[in-house]
Each structure stands twice: as C-alpha cells, then as structure tokens.
C-alpha cells in the first residue's frame, strides 16, 4: 500500500455567507495522478490554495507530505510545486533567467540553478528559445516554462491548475505525456485540475468531481461507472454529466 501524501479532513472555506469549500475529505497517495474536476467556482482552486497554505481553512485541516500547511507553509511550499492557472513570468527576462530566479528562491546556488534550468528547458522543449524574453512567448510555451518552473525545486508533489488551457492539441498531448513520464521516473504525485474531461480521462488514476464546494464522486473511472450505471464501461463524460443533468443548474 502506497503512503498517503495529501490528506484533507473536513476542510471548509467560507467567505462570509458563501461556502466555497464545504467539508471535504480527500486522500491522495504517493505516485498518483489525481484529477480535480468540476465547473468554474466549484471550489477546486480554493482547495488548492488551502493545501499550499496560501489561504486559511475556516474549518478542518490539511496535511501535505505530513505537514500542516496552515502552520508550516514554508515547509510545504518547499516540497510542493504549484503551477497556477494562467501563470505569468517576468516579461523582460529570458526563460532561463526566470527559472534561475525560482531556483535561487529555493536556496539552490546560482551555478547549479543554471545547469538545472538548462536541463529542464530541454526537457520541456524550450532549449532553442532560452535567450528569448518570456514576454514574447506563446501561451503554450509559457505553460511549458511553467512546468519547468515547478520542477526546478525537485518537488514531491506538483499541483497543476488548468495547465492545458490555451495549448494546441499537439502541445497538450506532449504536455500530458511529460506528466506521465515524470510520474513514472520520480514517483511524483500530481494533482491535476481541469474542465477538460478528455484530458483527465487520459492521464488520471483517480478523479474527484467537485460540485458547489463538495466532492460528489471520488474514485477511478470504471469504479464510478459501476457505481452509477451498474456497468464499468461508461466513460468519464457520462459520469460527469450525470451530476449536472436534471438539476436546477446547468454548467457549460
């Protein structure tokens, strides 16, 4: 049995009267690729912020790599790489400089950081543009640089918030392959938040479907299909839609 790396217990976040995240429980194991699914405003990003200690939970607690992020955010952030949605870089610096800066914030000495950054740039396929200012990068290049930026600190867990939005289909394919490779090589745990059912289905071992701050379904796709439809051959799309049909709300 693999060890638990992320544990959320009764986690709740309220903004005045609005409950963004409503008493969720979740465990993610080491080496897993876990998909966070759900419409906009379902509480995915808020949950991620709480895991990183960037916002305080109103109730409940989280434990990431055995550390409580609200108490020791620095230790958590040392081990967790987070790629925010629509990530930005310092536009007047090159990709390499941006990576080296991140590495140095993680206490990696400058020369080592530069070597590492070069290796990672090759890894994400940006080795030919490392002299180009990031202001001139395309969306897809930016996203790939973001992945390199997350990896430079040697994380145990990486959290990707909508990482594939705005990348062309071919780019998405190689991006997802890269994530799979990284998991296989280093036993990275990946949290993958997305609206794109197809991509989630391709890479994720397990998924959690967020609806209005609650996790409505949790598990791997065949099991969920079995649970909902009695057979294991329904795809993720059917599963996902079953939560949004017939209800008072229709999302997307």
């Amino acid at each position: 049995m693999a060890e638990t790396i992320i544990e959320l217990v009764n986690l709740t976040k309220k903004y005045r009267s609005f409950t963004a995240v409503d008493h969720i429980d979740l465990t993610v194991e080491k080496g897993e690729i876990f998909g966070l699914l759900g419409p906009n405003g379902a509480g995915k990003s808020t949950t991620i912020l709480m895991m990183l200690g960037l916002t305080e939970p109103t109730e409940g607690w989280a434990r990431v790599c055995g550390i409580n992020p609200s108490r020791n955010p620095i230790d958590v952030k040392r081990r967790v790489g987070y790629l925010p949605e629509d990530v930005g870089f310092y536009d007047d610096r090159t990709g390499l400089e941006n990576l080296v800066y991140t590495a140095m914030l993680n206490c990696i000495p400058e020369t080592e950081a530069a070597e590492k950054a070069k290796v990672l740039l090759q890894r994400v396929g940006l080795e030919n543009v490392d002299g180009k200012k990031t202001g001139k990068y395309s969306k897809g290049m930016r996203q790939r640089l973001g992945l390199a930026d997350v990896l430079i600190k040697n994380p145990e867990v990486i959290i990707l918030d909508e990482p594939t939005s705005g990348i062309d289909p071919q780019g998405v394919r190689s991006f997802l392959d890269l994530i799979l490779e990284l998991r296989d090589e280093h036993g990275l745990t990946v949290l993958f938040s997305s609206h794109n059912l197809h991509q989630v289905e391709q890479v994720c071992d397990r998924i959690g479907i967020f609806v209005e701050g609650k996790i409505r379904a949790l598990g791997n796709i065949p099991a969920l299909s079995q649970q909902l439809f009695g057979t294991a051959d329904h795809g993720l799309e059917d599963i996902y839609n079953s939560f949004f049909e017939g209800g008072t709300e229709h999302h997307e």
Partner: protein
Amino acid sequence: MKEERNIMNKKLQENFRNRRPFQDAVTERSSESSNKTKIKHPFWVMVGKEISDQVRSWRFIIMGVLIALTCLGSLYTALAQFSKQSGSAEDAFFFLNLFTLSDGTLPPFTVFISFLGPLLGISLGFDAINSEQNRGTLSRLLSQPIYRDYVINAKFVADLIVISSLFLTLGLLVLGSGLIALGIPPTGDELARLIFFILVSIIYVAFWLNLSILFSVVFRQAATSALSGIAIWLFFSIFYNMIVDLLAKAMAPKGMLTEGQVVEFQNFVLGLMRFNPSQLFSEATITLLMPSVRSLGALTMEQIEGALPTPLPIGQSLLMVWPQVTGLVAGSILLFGLGYYLFMRREVRSR
C-alpha cells in the same frame, strides 16, 4: 537523428535521477551551505532582482537623468554666484553654499529635490505589487518557499538602496566638483551636515515611495495608483499652501494685537503648513545646510534679545530638525505599515 535524441533523453533522465531523492538533496544542500556561504538568502535574491529591475527600467533612467541634470544646473548657477561673491571664502560654512546658493534663474539643489524627490519615489513604487498581480507572477512567487512579507519588504529595501545610491552619488559628485572648482576642501562639520542632508533627502523620498507602495497594494491598476500618487504630490506641492494661506487670511485676528498674539498666530499657521511633508523637508534641509538659521518660525523680541547671531554647531542644528525628521520617518512607517497590513491580509489568486 533519432538515436541522438535517444541518447540525449537518456542523459537527461540520468541527470534527473541524480538529483533525486529530494530529502537527500535537502540535507546535502544544508550541509553544503554550512561549508560554503555562497548560497544567498532568498530575501536578498529578491532584493537583488528588484534592484536590477529598477535600474534597467526606463522610468528610473528618465528620473535619474532628470535629477542629475537639475543637479548639474543648480551646481552651475551656484558656482556662478560664488565668483560674484568673491572674498567671502573666509566665511564659515562657505562650502555648503553649493547646495543653497542661487541667482534666481534656477532654484538651488534643495528646492529641486523637494520638488522632484516625490516624483522619483512615486515612480519607483507605484506598480510594486499590482504589476506582480497583473502579470500573474505574484501567485507563482508566493508558491515558493518564502514568507509573504518578503515580497513587499524586498521591494521596499531594493528601492531604498536605489534611492540611497542615487543621492549619495549625486551628493558626492557635487562635493567633488565643488572641490575642483573652488579649491577649498569642506570642513568636517560641513561634511557631516552634507551627509545628514543626504540622509534627510532619502527619508523624504522614502516617504513618497511608501505612499506609492501603499497605492500599489490598494489599486489593481498601475495607472490608477500612479495618478493617485501624483495627485497627492500636486496637492501638497501646489494647493496645500494656497489653502493654508486662505485659512490664515480668514482666521487672522483683527484689531490691536500684542506681540505675543501675532507670534502665536504665526506659529499656528506654521503648524498647519507642517502637515505638508515638503515643508518638513525644506525646514530640515535649510537648518542643516544653513547653520545661521537659528529658529524655525516666529520669535518674540523678548526671545531674540541677547542672542548672538552666530552659526549653530551641528549638534544644535540636528536638535532643531529632530521633530521634522521624526515626523517624516513616522509618516513613512505609518504608510508602509498600512500597505504591509493590507497586503498580508489579501488573498492572492491567479490574475
């Protein structure tokens, strides 16, 4: 071709593997850091990056050139005045005239600083926080293992270092060219006064810097923040004195007055003026650079009686400007504290 790529991939993978597992890397790193002190603390990494950002930016180059040019201009007029006032070289504090002397065509250096200093402070700080937010770099930065206040502190410290180096350089350059042009070295007292003048200028600009950092936290748009800063600067440099004048006229006591009443009223008006940071700055600099200034504000004949019109020693001059300097420092701390508080309380999401 394909083989090449395979080899490369393998190499990369090896590289990658070598850098894992993470725990080992950490212990290695910390033991390394105790041996070599080469690893920079993340805070100073951030300060270094902010300094290089500022120094490379156009607005700093423009402001720097503007201030350097005015400095040159006022130096020139001051030197021209010197030659007209020949024979006064025996006067005490002859050297400090470099900063205060003017023939009326160009204001002296101190006046330029009190006018342009705020603009420099505002231009350095107005987009400190909001540009990070708008570029989407703030959430990436905060997901690194640093404390949140490093972001705002590093920016403040970096800007302060930039301002200090600029003013110190300019001050010493004026000193040096004065030395060459006049051929008389400054006395120790004069040098000390000069250093204190530079220090007060830095504090004054830091006040405006903090104001603009506060605005950069409050306003999401850099343009709004810059305009608000400039509006306050214009208010204080143009309108505030007019308003105080109007008030003073309306409130002026009428009829027969004793000397005491007049002095009291004068001091009241001066008190109002002192809410203006540039008033505090000019009082402080005048006292520091003109040792013959013995009091700020009106005195009664009784108080002046028996006083010898000699220049003050530096300790006494400092004592006299102490309230002004304290006021400026307090204002800066208040503004920075407010910005800090608002920034720390904010929830940072991606742009």
